[in-house]
């Protein structure tokens, strides 16, 4: 693995939370590399630090010590506005609870990352409609999220994560709110549309049914990455 194909490089990453009387270690000296062109799954029991790790990787949380570079850029060295811009351009998010804006229609929801990046609304809506087409919702662009099933809403979230062509996709439990069949379908869409040789994807999950989609699996426990295993892609 060369430096060129490393999307995320975490070194000695430490993150603690102050709960008043004591410090809780969420991440303990994490060393992790995420290569481009691969789908990495972060797995482990609840409270093991998976979500904290992707929050630090995405520049949403600051680590206490250690470094975390995203495509060679240490986000902690950027000021707030530079970091916002970097995140807007380079990261796409898929959340467990979809987090679609309920009062915006699908095209408007998907166009948000483009608008944040300064694309004109008309053009952004057109591009968003194309992205929705890719996830099989091209005929629902004017619908509201409440008119869709959970699986369809997650497909909208995927379209939103991909629409601005980011270099890292961060997914937090994308299938845990879905039944097996729908979850499988969502993963197929993610695998088909999101994985790209210039892009990395991190999925936080403890849904063992989707492990088969991973290129590599990083197992975490108690704030430590226990091991990283390569997986054989059957898809």
């Amino acid at each position, binding site marked *: 693995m060369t430096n060129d194909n490393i999307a995320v490089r975490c070194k000695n990453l430490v993150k603690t939370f102050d709960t008043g009387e004591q410090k809780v270690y969420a991440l303990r000296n994490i060393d992790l590399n995420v290569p481009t062109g691969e789908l990495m799954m972060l797995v482990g029991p609840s409270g093991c630090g998976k979500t904290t790790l992707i929050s630090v990787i995405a520049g949403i949380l600051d680590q206490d010590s250690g470094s975390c570079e995203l495509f060679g850029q240490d986000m902690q060295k950027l000021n707030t506005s530079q970091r916002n811009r970097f995140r807007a*351009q380079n990261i796409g*998010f898929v959340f467990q609870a979809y987090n679609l804006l309920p009062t915006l229609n699908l095209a408007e929801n998907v166009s948000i*990352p483009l608008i944040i990046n300064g694309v004109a609304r008309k053009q952004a809506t057109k591009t968003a409609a194309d992205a929705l087409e890719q996830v099989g919702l091209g005929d629902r662009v004017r619908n509201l999220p409440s008119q869709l099933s959970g699986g369809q809403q997650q497909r909208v979230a995927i379209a939103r994560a991909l629409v601005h062509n980011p270099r890292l996709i961060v997914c937090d439990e994308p299938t845990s709110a879905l039944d097996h069949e729908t979850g499988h379908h969502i993963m197929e869409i993610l695998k088909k549309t999101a994985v790209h040789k210039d892009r990395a994807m991190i999925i936080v999950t403890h849904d063992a049914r989707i492990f088969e989609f991973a290129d590599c699996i990083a197992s975490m426990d108690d704030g430590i990455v226990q091991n990283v295993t390569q997986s054989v892609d059957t898809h």
Partner: protein
Amino acid sequence: MNYIALKMLMGNTGKYLGIIMGLTFASLIMTQQPAIFVGLMARTFSFISDVGQPEIWVMDPKVQFVDDIKPMQDTELYRVRGVAGVEWALPLYKGMLKVRLADGTFQNCIVVGLDDATLMGGPPTMLQGNLVDLRQSDGVIVDEDGAKEKLSKPPVNPGDKPTPIKVGDTLELNDRRAVIVGIAKVTRTFQAQPVIYTTYSRAMSYAPRERKLLTFVIVKGKVGEDPAVLSKRIHDATGLSAYTTDEFKTLTYNYFMKNTGIPINFGMSVMLGFIVGAAIAGQTFYSFTMENIRQFGVLKAMGTGNGTLLRMILLQAALVGIIGYGLGVGLTSLFGYSMRNTILAFKFPWQLLLFSGAGITLICMFAALLSIRKVIKLEAAIVFRS
């Protein structure tokens, strides 16, 4: 992002209407109550406004406002006429006299006695008859509202409306006969008493016998004469109080402001409207933001800066503010229009628009600040919580 902010706001119809209703209510109270107050206060000097021609009013030095009648000796008129710069000076009687009505009851009326020769100081608009008809024997002119309401004749049949008095009818003023020769439109007075115009000499005969009966001397300065300078000259020469028309209005207005509870009562209403409006709008807007806090977190996670989120919230606050303000002002205007021919005092000057606009801006800023504080402090990591 402005479009997204507006869609977020308007998409939640219940909250959106709730915020607008709060602001409409605040705007309504902050315009309607002061408009009534301004209308009421304008009535305190309506008599001065209606007597349009004189530039200067001369009166006893102890007079505190237009209805505070402290008569002077008739000879004061000649002293005023003797002051340099006076073009003309005329007597004006103003007194409160009792009129005996057809049913035997009495009604207090404002009787205005005009200079017999010139009839200067008469009503601003004649609806029936002419001002010169006052020269007819026992002639008086009655104001329209008085003729229709307080001086009207009892209904012929019980339950019917009273019959307005009309030209040709007679009144009994202090045991003396008065014949109505005209109906005039005058601005309602503060005490809403009927106004009866007659000549100065006839007013003297209606008024109870007193040594002094001259209420005011109304003065017009010569061309080029500054009324303020002339009034001071009159005061210096005669020892009487002499005010320009505007000064006399201000004197009257200030008297009511200082010596009645009216400003406090209306001020409390306005303050209450402001507080209730701020509470409703602030609380609803804040709860709207809290409902959308996760959406703001999503936008933040996606790279939206605090500055943009701040602008979004300010835009939302500005929109509901403008709509609420517009509706409130519109309702106040509608209220004023529908009450235009009633006894209710109502005046809606442009200054009130500015005042209420500033009030609504304050409420919106307060509501927005509550939300902005929450959103700025929001950690984007909230989006990863299920």
